[in-house]
């Protein structure tokens, strides 16, 4: 559909895009600026697009009211472990399903793929019971093991398999003729070629873990063990009402670093997801 537009059409198009951008940009703007306002100015009318009396009190309160640094670390390390673990599991099995011939391959692939139909919300009750029996409630194990080995990694495996199928086989055959074993062929030849797919899988796995909410509130009960999404909802006053500026400061601290990484690497994010991710 890319045809040359008249200057008038271009102007209209820019106008439409700018209006459409408001609900995408304004919330982030409002979050950051409101977190810098004193409580009295939060709901001031007319709305202050820039804080009239900027201050950092809310940011200080974030760390006083919750072990927020610890919670930040929890979310970060869980998401990183889940990402690395998912990459390992899904690259290995995706490679095997795409490249190695073994008995029962197709049936086993369908068995694994069936996991896509069973979201973790369906199995949350028995998962809670299983981890309870193992004495792993109020630990990070369920938040690490289930995403790496359970349903969430199935999509990653599917993407890796589609990618490995599309790789030309000659390079691997050359490596095999040179006497490399299966694992060495996978590690030294196939894996370095699959960077785009690994990148796409890494991005959506990290975000998935980073966003988890139901699982943490089901499995965790000690504030020191909370993850960020869970911690964000804990900034409430004695009556259960939200302390808006503190919540927004915590939300800003949660959202801004990822946003900055995204803006720097937006090409890899967007094109990686679009082209490797879900094409097949």
């Amino acid at each position, binding site marked *: 559909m890319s045809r040359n537009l008249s200057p008038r059409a271009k102007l209209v198009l820019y106008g439409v895009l700018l209006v459409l951008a408001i*609900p995408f940009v304004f919330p*982030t703007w409002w979050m950051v600026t409101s977190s810098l306002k004193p409580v009295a100015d939060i709901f001031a009318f007319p709305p202050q697009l820039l804080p009239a009396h900027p201050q950092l009190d809310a940011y200080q309160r974030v760390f006083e009211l919750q072990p927020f640094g610890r919670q930040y670390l929890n979310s970060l390390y869980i998401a990183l472990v889940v990402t690395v673990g998912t990459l390992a599991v899904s690259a290995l099995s995706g490679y095997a399903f795409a490249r190695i011939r073994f008995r029962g391959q197709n049936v086993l692939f369908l068995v*694994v793929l069936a996991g896509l139909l069973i979201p973790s919300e369906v199995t949350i*009750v028995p998962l809670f019971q299983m981890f309870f029996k193992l004495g792993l409630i109020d630990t990070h194990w369920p938040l690490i093991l289930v995403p790496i080995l359970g349903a969430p990694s199935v999509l990653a495996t599917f993407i890796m398999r589609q990618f490995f199928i599309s790789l030309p086989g000659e390079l691997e055959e050359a490596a095999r003729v040179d006497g490399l074993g299966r694992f060495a062929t996978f590690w030294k030849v196939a894996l370095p070629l699959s960077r785009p797919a690994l990148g796409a899988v890494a991005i959506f796995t990290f975000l998935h873990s980073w966003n988890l909410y139901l699982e943490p509130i089901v499995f965790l009960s000690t504030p020191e063990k909370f993850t960020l999404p869970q911690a964000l909802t804990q900034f409430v006053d004695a009556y259960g009402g939200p302390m808006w500026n503190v919540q927004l400061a915590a939300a800003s601290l*949660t959202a801004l670093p990822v946003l900055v990484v995204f803006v720097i690497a*937006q090409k890899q994010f967007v094109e990686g997801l679009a082209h490797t991710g879900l094409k097949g």
Partner: protein
Amino acid sequence: MSQTDIRVGGAQAPPTAARPPRPWWTSRRRDQLAGYLFIAPQLIGSLLFVFLPLVLVVWYSLHEWNVLAGTFDFVGPDNYSALADDPNLGSMLRATGLFSVGLVVFNLALALLLAVLLNQRLRGTIVFRTIFFSPVVVSLVAWTIVWGFLLQDNGGVNGLLDTIGVDGPNWLRGEGTAMFSVIIVQVFKNVGLNMVLFLAALQGVPAELYEAAEVDGASRMRQFWRITVPLISPTILLTSIITVVGSLQVFAQIAVLTQGGPGTSTTVLVYYLYQQAFQFHHFGYGATLSILLFGIVLALTVLQWQMRKRWVFHES
């Protein structure tokens, strides 16, 4: 699996014994073993964390199980008849359906609109693409909290509306507006993902088709419905499947924005499941609701698969 292999190997041994012995441990067998070892973590993980819990959830659903009271009694189909008689069933299914349909319609329509706009020959589309995609990387709860703040009666949205002379409603507390608000918040959060998939699909539509249509005097609208939509229909199906299945899993947005209210107007299935199992400790009934969720996901997937055969345009 490897057990089967050894047995098969053993069975083949006698006939070959007469001939010069061939090594049993061939490179083909080695490769097979590598295959099983490569998929072992995923397969064992699926059995432990997907299929075992699925069997257990069926088993639990046949029990009256209250964690606090310490009861675990086999009651057969009682939970299912309790579900059929649950006075909340109607409103819960209605809320779930409304959310899913609303999300799919608004999300796909906006995603397609944005993709078409960004597919024009225009400077700065990358900037807008980055803007529209950015909420995807913002933590879901952070995004929801900010919108909860914006949608307060005296919040930013009504503040903005007021400056143009519109008196906005109390979005999250009104029966009619609460569900709409939850849907819209989720649309803006994730529409960028579908937009990017649509954009990739649009770029794959050959320009000659439009040129030919232009020569035939077809209007832009007609070109869109007759060329663009059929050619990107596989992507429309894919995004609709992802969006529908994702919409059934909605939880954090409800928990943060409305807690299922006002009344039960935004109590969707997963939120109700969470309340029953983890707030009221009715694990048996929670398991029954899980089965209902599984049934809906399964039915929708089969349905969409059927639609694929009928509607989606195939190149070959």
